[in-house]
């Protein structure tokens, strides 16, 4: 069995284990949870707090609003929300990736820029996302590019790219500077210019550093897109659905879990997309010396 199919098997096994644990908790623990000296140490396990797995899955096929026969099903709503958010997250990943790669190239080329910019790149990630989201939406609202007025989804994409750019910039810089000095001197001795050295040495050598960075960035972009949807109030995505469904969680608990399930699947799909990138660049994977 190849390592890839083993990964698939263990991923599925972990998912099954999670379902088993969930149902086991419902079976073994008291419905009211466990309270020690007035503090609840284990959650409530009744059907309102932890609905059965099959109830959640069943809810996917039922209409979004109970009783109304004409509306779309919960499953359709979750799927369309997840696709919308996936699009924004991948757009953000692409935008952040391009910016991150460009920044890394400039930092590699000019060490002064690296010394000047890297602390700010790191600092940028310590600003809470919740604080930036309204700012981006606010600035964006005042922008019209070539007659195209800013849309709320564009804010979401920008915020997702803001999170995705960081691991890519750092991973790319590390990859670009990974060739040992003997390799760099060999290229210099061959009278290779900066561009040729970049294409023939630095970029191939950076692949083992960049692929894990893109995987991190994809996950960050999904989280960023969901949080940005929530904090900017953007409609149409899974973030909005989570909030909407959570508000009615007391009356319809399993519906909230369908949205959370949708967000989890979304993350897996994003990670899988990066896996394809890894397969495409396999030739360069073993190049860390």
């Amino acid at each position: 069995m190849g390592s890839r199919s083993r990964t698939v098997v263990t991923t599925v096994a972990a998912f099954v284990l999670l379902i088993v644990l969930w149902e086991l908790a419902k079976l073994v623990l008291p419905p009211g949870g466990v309270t020690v000296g007035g503090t609840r140490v284990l959650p409530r396990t009744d059907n309102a707090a932890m609905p059965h797995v099959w109830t959640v899955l069943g809810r996917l096929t039922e209409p979004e609003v109970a009783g109304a026969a004409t509306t779309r099903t919960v499953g359709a709503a979750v799927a369309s929300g997840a696709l919308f958010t996936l699009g924004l997250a991948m757009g953000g990943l692409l935008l952040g990736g391009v910016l991150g790669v460009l920044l890394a190239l400039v930092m590699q080329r000019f060490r002064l820029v690296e010394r000047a910019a890297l602390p700010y790149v790191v600092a940028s990630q310590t600003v809470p996302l919740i604080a930036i989201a309204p700012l981006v939406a606010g600035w964006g609202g005042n922008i019209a590019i070539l007659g195209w007025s800013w849309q709320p989804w564009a804010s979401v994409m920008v915020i997702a790219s803001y999170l995705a750019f960081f691991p890519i910039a750092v991973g790319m810089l590390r990859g670009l500077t990974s060739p040992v000095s003997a390799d760099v001197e060999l290229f210099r001795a061959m009278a290779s210019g900066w561009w040729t050295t970049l294409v023939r040495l630095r970029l191939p050598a950076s692949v083992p550093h960049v692929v894990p960075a893109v995987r991190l960035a994809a996950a960050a972009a999904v989280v960023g897109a969901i949080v940005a949807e929530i904090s900017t109030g953007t409609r149409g995505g899974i973030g909005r659905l989570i909030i909407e469904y959570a508000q009615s969680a007391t009356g319809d608990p399993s519906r909230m879990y369908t949205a959370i399930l949708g967000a989890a699947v979304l993350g897996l799909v994003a990670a899988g997309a990066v896996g394809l990138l890894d397969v495409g660049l396999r030739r360069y994977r073993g190049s860390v010396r």
Partner: protein
Amino acid sequence: MTAAVALAGVDKRFGDVHALDGIDLEVGPGEFVSLIGPSGCGKSTLLRVVADLEQPTGGAALVGGKSPQQARLDQDYGIAFQQAGLLEWRTVAENVELPLHVHGVGKVERRARATDLLTLVGLHEFAGSRPSELSGGMQQRVAIARALAPSPRLLLMDEPFGALDEMTRERMQAELLRIIGETGAAVLFVTHSIPEAVVLSDRVVVMSPRPGRITEIVPGCRPVDGAATDLAPADVEDVRESGAFFSAITAVREALRKGHE
């Protein structure tokens, strides 16, 4: 004919460290010259000055009659380091092609040249292999083939066999002599090994500890006869057992001791 390398009063300082002090040396066309000396005597620095990887702080260096920089840009020399430094994402043949690829030589011509060179170093059946599938000695042979790809008149080698075991090393020395004999390139060769310097070289340049100066130049025992092209490993073995070989080793040893006094 123009000297492959001509150094006149070459001086190199790294801040307060005086690495090279007034080096005068000429390497003739097709000549094999070794640099030997204690660690830190500047022999690698001298090679790097010729390769235009370091700028001398004094004196003048000419490589094939040109400035080292021009020689580097024109790919007039090939270079090999202690580590073979093969790129793992390229096949063996693609590694040999690298200098030609960097200079935009077409694919067909590149392939043909790589095939010739791999045949020359006896590795043509490994053309499609990955470098990691090769032994250390084979990797170093690929590195030599790569250095020879642009048909340079000068080969610069910085302890290329330093990481190999003794048996492989002796085999590689015989291989190198045969390859160099066939290409007719001059060689400037940095080594720590006295027998290696003696068996390979026309002349062995003995250097003193820092600041690096040339203490003495000892004639080596490079086995060259009229037909260098069919130099057999046995010829090199004969040299290693000859009286001239041992007396040259003694001469180098004494020159090294003199440099320390």
